[in-house]
């Protein structure tokens, strides 16, 4: 979530130890109180206060989200994330209605069905790997459904996603190694080719799915070119999957840490929307988003040169006491919660309403069927930095 992409701001928190990766809030606080604008070699200026982060979001001309902000081996700008205003608006005009709450609400039965089918597979076993069997497949299956693609393509989908987002993990070498760079390029090419092929099919025969709608979408009398549609699809693949998986991992990590919060959901499922907002705030699954300065400027008194990156640490903004005095308390009864877990400004996460729906439905269906669960004794949760997801989450029920 966070932003139209889902972040990909680089691994500013890459040096975190497992404990800090699992509970990063004290790290954010320490940075806020010592170096709220911190220059980090290879990353840029790291921002951890709400004030500077809002400044960045409100000034997309100065702090651009263009291709210089993040490199994911895409050959053209991702749409709409890497397009700046005013052109950005024309794409959002097409995409926003497709992801507006009214439209997204229609998906609720499908999401509930997919969630329940996943639960069916392990509920009687008394344990599961929450990441491998629930949080990873669910958002990908929802996306396959929306795009009108067969669920059998799940493994292809996951391979493409992981190859772009964490090629270093897949290849088992450092991020800047030539093999990793080459692999990421290869996967990027395969993503364009995959969607190109599906779009060829939809050109011949339209269906009731998102890809068909893209082909017929028009703004200011222009339809989207094939390349433009591919650039949207590429972004969807890397923005819509990992981010929701990470959110589920973070939420259930919190809930296994706090049985009283888990019990509160079981006792009164009507609190789920508030739980979603508060855990989005507290956990901030997508920890940061990147921008690049287009002119010489300053933030919080620190000079920023044109061409330099800034990394808005959303988790820092969301735990800033200047915005929320009791920010270190997790409360499901807040009157005010202005979290920026989906980013802010013109690039506010396009999929935020879909993400919220998936999270609400997942919590509801899960707790109705598996009210009691815990981290498997002896297991440790190792969160990846940046997008805070888990590769494995051994869980026991009852």
């Amino acid at each position: 979530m966070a932003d139209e992409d889902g972040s990909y701001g680089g691994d500013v928190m890459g040096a975190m130890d497992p404990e800090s990766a699992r509970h990063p809030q004290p790290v954010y606080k320490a940075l806020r109180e010592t170096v709220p604008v911190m220059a980090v070699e290879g990353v840029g200026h790291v921002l951890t206060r709400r004030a500077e982060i809002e400044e960045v979001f409100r000034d997309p001309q100065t702090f651009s989200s263009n291709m210089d902000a993040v490199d994911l081996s895409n050959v053209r700008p991702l749409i709409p994330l890497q397009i700046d205003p005013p052109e950005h608006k024309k794409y959002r005009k097409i995409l926003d209605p497709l992801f507006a709450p009214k439209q997204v609400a229609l998906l609720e039965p499908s999401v509930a069905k997919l969630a329940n089918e996943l639960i069916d597979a392990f509920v009687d076993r008394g344990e599961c790997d929450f990441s491998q069997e629930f949080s990873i497949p669910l958002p990908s299956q929802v996306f396959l459904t929306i795009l009108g693609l067969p669920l059998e393509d799940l493994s292809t989908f996951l391979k493409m996603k992981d190859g772009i987002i964490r090629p270093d993990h897949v290849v088992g070498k450092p991020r800047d190694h030539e093999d990793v760079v080459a692999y990421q390029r290869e996967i990027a090419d395969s993503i364009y080719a995959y969607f190109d092929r599906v779009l060829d099919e939809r050109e011949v025969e339209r269906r009731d799915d998102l890809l068909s709608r893209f082909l017929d979408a028009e703004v200011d009398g222009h339809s989207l070119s094939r390349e433009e549609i591919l650039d949207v699809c590429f972004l969807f693949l890397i923005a819509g999957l990992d981010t929701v998986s990470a959110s589920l991992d973070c939420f259930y990590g919190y809930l296994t840490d706090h049985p009283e919060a888990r019990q509160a959901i079981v006792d009164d499922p009507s609190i789920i929307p508030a739980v979603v907002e508060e855990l989005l705030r507290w956990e901030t699954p997508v920890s940061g988003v990147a921008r690049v300065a287009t002119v010489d400027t300053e933030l919080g008194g620190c000079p920023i040169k044109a061409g330099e990156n800034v990394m808005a640490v959303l988790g820092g903004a969301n735990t800033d006491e200047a915005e929320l005095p009791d920010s270190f308390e997790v409360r499901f009864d807040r009157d005010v919660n202005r979290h920026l877990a989906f980013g802010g400004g013109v690039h506010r996460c396009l999929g935020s309403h879909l993400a919220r729906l998936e999270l609400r439905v997942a919590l509801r269906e899960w707790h109705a069927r598996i009210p009691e669960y815990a981290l498997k004794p002896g297991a440790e949760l190792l969160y990846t930095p940046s997008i805070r997801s888990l590769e494995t989450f051994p869980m026991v029920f009852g």
Partner: protein
Amino acid sequence: VRLELDRDRCTGHGRCYTLAPEVFGSDDDGYGEVLVDGDVPTALEATARTAANNCPERAITVHD
């Protein structure tokens, strides 16, 4: 009280119409809009204020 929603500032987080659907609505693109013409009925003032306070972009002003 009257409500003013700054369309240039709203980026479609959707907090207002989620928290106070009696007072705020969503357009087809998911951006907020004020549903009440003129003064907000007294019974809805508190919920309207809560919704305004929850806007991440501070796009809503409550005029007393």
